[in-house]
C-alpha cells in the first residue's frame, strides 16, 4: 500500500533534501556576509555616526532647551497654541516619570527613520506612478514588507550587521516605508487628468509637470502617507529594541519578560504620547499648507 500513502499524508520532500537546501542557503548567505559584511558596514558608517551624534545631541542638551525647541517646532508647524501646550505637558509628564532619556533616544531614531523613509519613499512613489509596470513590480514587494513578520527580515540584517542601531533603522524603515510609497503613487495617479493635460498642452516639460502640478496636487495624499509612516515607525520601537536599539522599547521588552505591569504601561503610554504629538503636528502642518484647497469654496 506504499503507493497510496500520499492520500493520507502530505507528500512532502524528504528531510535530507530540506536539510541540503537549508544548509546551502545558510552557507551561501554566511559566505556573503563574511565577504561583504565589512563593506556594507562601512557603507552605513556615516549614517551610524549621524545617529550617534544626533542621539547624543538630544540627550546632552538641557531638557528645558529641548522642550523649548520642541514647542517652537510644534508651533511653527501647526500655529496652534492648544497643540503646543498639549505637547509640552505630555513631554513634561513623560520626563517626570523618569523616561526622559529613553524618550530622547526614541525620538532621535524615529526622526532619522522617518526622514530616511520620506527621502527614499517619495522618489520611489513617483517612479511607481510613472508606469503601470513598475507599479506591478513594486506593489507585491510592499505587500511583503508590510506582512512579513519583522523578525524574519531581522535575521539576515542582524547576521550581516550584528545588533545595534543600524539594523534597527533598517528594520524600522522597511516596515514604515510602504505607506509613503503607496500614497505618493496614489496621490500622483489621482491628479486630475485634465489639469495635467492642460499643463502638457501649454508645453510643460516632464519636470515642470512633476514639480508644478503633480506633486503639489498630490501633497495632501503624500502627507497622509508620511503621517502613516511615522505611526508605523513608532510601533516598531519595541521590536527594534530586541536587536539592541535603546529607547522606550527596551523597558517594555524588560517588562514582558519580567511581568512588570506598571513599567510596561508607563513606557507604552510614553510611546503613545509621542505618537499622538507626531500625528497631530504633522496633520496640522499638512492641513495648514493645503489651506487654499479647503475652506472658502465656491459652491
Amino acid at each position: 500500500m506504499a503507493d497510496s500513502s500520499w492520500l493520507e499524508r502530505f507528500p512532502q520532500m524528504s528531510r535530507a533534501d530540506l536539510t541540503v537546501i537549508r544548509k546551502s542557503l545558510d552557507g551561501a548567505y554566511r559566505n556573503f556576509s563574511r565577504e561583504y559584511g565589512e563593506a556594507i558596514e562601512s557603507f552605513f558608517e556615516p549614517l551610524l555616526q549621524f545617529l550617534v551624534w544626533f542621539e547624543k545631541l538630544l540627550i546632552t542638551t538641557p531638557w528645558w532647551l529641548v522642550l523649548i525647541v520642541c514647542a517652537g517646532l510644534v508651533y511653527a508647524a501647526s500655529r496652534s497654541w492648544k497643540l503646543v501646550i498639549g505637547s509640552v505637558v505630555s513631554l513634561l509628564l513623560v520626563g517626570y516619570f523618569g523616561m526622559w532619556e529613553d524618550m530622547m533616544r526614541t525620538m532621535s531614531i524615529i526622526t532619522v527613520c522617518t526622514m530616511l523613509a520620506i527621502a527614499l519613499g517619495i522618489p520611489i512613489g513617483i517612479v511607481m506612478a510613472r508606469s503601470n509596470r513598475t507599479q506591478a513590480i513594486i506593489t507585491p514587494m510592499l505587500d511583503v514588507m508590510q506582512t512579513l513578520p519583522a523578525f524574519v527580515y531581522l535575521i539576515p540584517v542582524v547576521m550581516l550587521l550584528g545588533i545595534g542601531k543600524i539594523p534597527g533603522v533598517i528594520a524600522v524603515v522597511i516596515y514604515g516605508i510602504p505607506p509613503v510609497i503607496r500614497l505618493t503613487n496614489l496621490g500622483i495617479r489621482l491628479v486630475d487628468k485634465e489639469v495635467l493635460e492642460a499643463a502638457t498642452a501649454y508645453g510643460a516639460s516632464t519636470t515642470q509637470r512633476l514639480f508644478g502640478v503633480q506633486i503639489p496636487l498630490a501633497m495632501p495624499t503624500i502627507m497622509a502617507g508620511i503621517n502613516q509612516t511615522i505611526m508605523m515607525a513608532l510601533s516598531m520601537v519595541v521590536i527594534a529594541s530586541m536587536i539592541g536599539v535603546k529607547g522606550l522599547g527596551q523597558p517594555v521588552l524588560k517588562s514582558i519578560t519580567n511581568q512588570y505591569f506598571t513599567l510596561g504601561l508607563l513606557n507604552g503610554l510614553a510611546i503613545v504620547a509621542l505618537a499622538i504629538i507626531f500625528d497631530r503636528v504633522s496633520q496640522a502642518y499638512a492641513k495648514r499648507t493645503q489651506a487654499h484647497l479647503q475652506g472658502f469654496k465656491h459652491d
Partner: protein
Amino acid sequence: MTEPLIKIQGLYKLFGENPKQVMPRVKAGESKDKILAETGHTLGLKDINLEIQQGEIYVIMGLSGSGKSTLIRHFNRLIDPTEGVISIEGTDVMKLSSKELQDFRRHKMSMVFQRFGLMPHRSVIENVAYGLTVQGVPKEQRLAKAQEWLDTVGLNGYEQQYPSQLSGGQQQRVGLARALSTDAEILLMDEAFSALDPLIRSEMQDQLIELQETLHKTIIFITHDLDEALRIGDKIAILKDGEVVQQGTPDDILLNPATDYVEAFVKDVNRARALTVETVMRPPARRITADTIGEALQQMKKIKGDYAYHVTEDGYQGIVTQDSLEQASKANADEQFETCEYQDVPTISPDAAIESVITDSLASDFSLPVVDDDGNLKGELTRKSVAEVFAEPEESEVDADSNKEALVSK
C-alpha cells in the same frame, strides 16, 4: 484662396494594442462595430481631411463619442494619430522631436478645456500666467501680461482668489485668459462653453466673437451644440462615428444637409435666428432704372407684377407701384421721379437674421428690398421665403432648390 494654416490629411486613429496591424481592415472599409468585435480595437477617427484658414473660427461638431475631442487633441499631439499628416504653417507636426513639440505647444497653440483644467493650487493670476511660467518668462513680466488679459476678460479684482472660489463662467474666463496670454496664433477650444449655464454660455460666446474681431486668431472650436456652432462658426465640420459627414459654412449646412444625420440635427435649430436675409433672399427681378415716369411705366409693364424697385447710379431709391406711376404719368410723363412717388417700405440689411425682419416682412404689402451698407439693392425678401424658413425642411424640397439658387447667386 491662400494656403490653409492648418492642414490635416488622411488622419486615422485606432485605439488598441496593435493599431498598425488592424489598419488594413479599416482601410478595407470594415465597420467600426465589426473591428471592435473582432480585434478589440476602437476606431476613433477615420480618414479626416480638414483645411483651416488663418483667422477663421472652425467648429467641429458632433455628439459624444463622435471623436471630436480625440480630433482636437491631435492638433497639439496630446494624442498621436495612427496614420495621417498634420501640418501647421507648413510644418509637419508629426515629425517634431519631443523638444520641438514642447516648444511648438508653448508658442503656437493654446487650449481651453471643457472642465477648465485650471490648477487648483495656483491663484487666478498665476493660472493665467501659467503658459508664460512654462516658457520661463520673468515673474514681473508675466504677471503684468496676465493682469492685462485678466482685465480683458473682465475679471479684474479676482487675481488672488483660487479657482475653486470662482463660478463656472468665471473659471472659464480664467481659462480663456490663460489661453490668450501666450499670444499663440491658434486657439483650441474643447467644448469650452459646454459646462456652463445657457445664459453664461451665450455671454461667453458673445465675448469670444467680440475678442475675435480684434485678435483674428485661428480658432478650432469643439461643440456638441449646433446652435453654438452656427452662432460662432465661420466653417463647420460635422463629425459622426469618427468620420466627417459634412463640411461647410453654417448656411450651407442649414440649407443643404448632406445626410439624414445632419438633417436630423438641423431640424431642431432655430432657423430664423441662424439664417441671414442674404441666404434666403431672391435676386431682384423687378427693378427699374428709368429717370422719368414715362420710361418707368414702360419698364414696369415689361415686368410681371404691379410694383418695382427703383434703382439709379446712386443705388436703391424706393418702391414704386404701377398705379402710382399711371397716376403720375397722366400729369406729366417726362417728369423726374420724386420721393413722394415711393411707397413707405423699410429696407433690410443682407446680414440681418430672419428673426429680426419677420415683423417688417409681414406688415408690408411688398417683398422687402434687401439693401447693403453701400446702398446697393442686393435682392428681395418675399414673404413666402420667410415662411419657408419656418417650414419643415424635408417638406419643402422645391424651396430648397430655390434657396440653392439664392446661394449661388450671391
